[in-house]
């Protein structure tokens, strides 16, 4: 099946079996291995990418369903010489150990900060209609779809908080 995808600003023509998930398309067909496969069932968040501005689990969606869509992966957020603010903060705050969950964490956090800007409440927001106070509990709840087997959670929260507060690292 022919599928046109714009990935990190570059146009790609994918020709793959209809069964191909967006995750497998990225990793196996397009050679972009930054996005990781953990559980392959929506339970870990390692495969998180941003599609048309929203974070999703790329393991639970078919590549062919995204014909014409814009995909951003970890490779598109920054480069080794020019890290994104969140990438820099994860380094500065030791937001990882083995690093396997990190691309998913950073893609997820990038889109999550936009959700906060858009005023989306969360399960821990005391008032659904009030402005969001970005507590650590808010960050943890909003990032609960990204598991870290090394349990780097406290530093992940710290890295995200720093960027959310506009701090430079």
């Amino acid at each position, binding site marked *: *099946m022919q599928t046109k995808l714009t990935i990190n600003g570059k146009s790609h023509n994918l020709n793959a*079996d*209809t*069964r191909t*998930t967006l995750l497998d398309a990225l990793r196996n067909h397009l050679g972009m291995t930054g996005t990781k496969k953990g559980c*392959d*069932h*929506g339970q870990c*968040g390692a495969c*998180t990418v941003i599609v048309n501005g*929203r*974070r*999703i*689990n790329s393991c*639970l*969606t*078919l590549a*062919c*369903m995204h*014909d014409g869509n814009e995909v951003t992966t970890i490779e598109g957020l920054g480069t080794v010489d020019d890290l994104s603010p969140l990438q820099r903060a994860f380094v500065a705050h030791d937001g990882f150990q083995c690093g396997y969950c990190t691309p998913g964490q950073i893609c*997820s956090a990038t*889109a*999550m900060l936009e*959700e906060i800007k*858009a*005023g*989306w*409440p*969360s*399960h821990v*927001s005391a008032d*659904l*209609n009030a402005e969001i106070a970005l507590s650590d509990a808010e960050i*943890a*709840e*909003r*990032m*609960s*779809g*990204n598991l870290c087997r090394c349990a780097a959670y406290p530093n992940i929260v710290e890295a995200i908080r720093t960027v959310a507060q506009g701090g430079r690292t």
Partner: protein
Amino acid sequence: MRSFHYERAADTPDAVAACAAGATIIAGGTNLLDLMKREVVQPERLIDITRLDLRTIESAEGGLSIGALVSNSDLAAHRDVRRDWPVLAQALLSGASGQLRNKATTGGNLLQRTRCYYFQDSAMPCNKREPGSGCHALGGATRLHAILGGSDACIATHPSDMAVAMTMLDASLDIIGKDGASRRLRLRDFYRLPGDTPHIETVLQPGDLIAKVVLPPPAGGRQTYRKVRDRASYAFALVSVAARIELAEGRIADASLAFGGIAPRPWHDPAVDRLLVGEVPSAALFARVADVLLDGAAPQEGNAFKVPLLRRTLTATLNELCREIPQ
């Protein structure tokens, strides 16, 4: 995953025609693809409905009309939902994760399948997956299973949080049948109990497409969704309660309750609502309500904890909603 034929519907008649010809609808795909990977379901033909014009949330009939493709995140973030149906926003926000809610759709959420371990494992017998093959949840691992409404054939629970809130709110569905005609159905009449046909989960007919969910006009009082689970986030409910209580002059003037995690469908018991109306809130009243709710409960060894847990969760929810609001 087995191979399948994929097509994208251009408009609703297109989708209805494909459904009528036996195609399986794919919307967010977060449940269907999960089950296809496990070969729990093996559709030969998928119809992708995500490009249909069913993404609007609009005021209708004094209430709210929600397109079947509205994502769980957009619905939870919608101004009117947060203000007038907060129980629905809370239920949605307590489900799954930020990533999943971005993909999960209103229609798909209602039709997501049970998280029963035996249903999800195609190597195990399961009356829901393979009618007549048996149920290994009975006498097996039942932490997520039903204490009410189950049968000798199946004790699987319906996993949706959103559907519990919508059941409490008495939402309706607009369904398009394979002849193209639309009909309306109350959500409270939508899910079937397993009996000896646990593979038939709803009253939908082959080829039906859910087009919309319609919420009735906002009702008075206070409402909330309380969910108890094994970890603080990103886990299905062990027990949940959606409740609305309206107080007048120290008495309960109106009440509506629905429960999740305890039954094969979002559980609504009209006797529970009736018992509360006209009464002065008290611990004794709440205990009586729990007795009525749990009358006929048939827990297994592995989920007997849900009986006291439901009692306490119900009491805590009613206490919260009946508490005097400081002026």
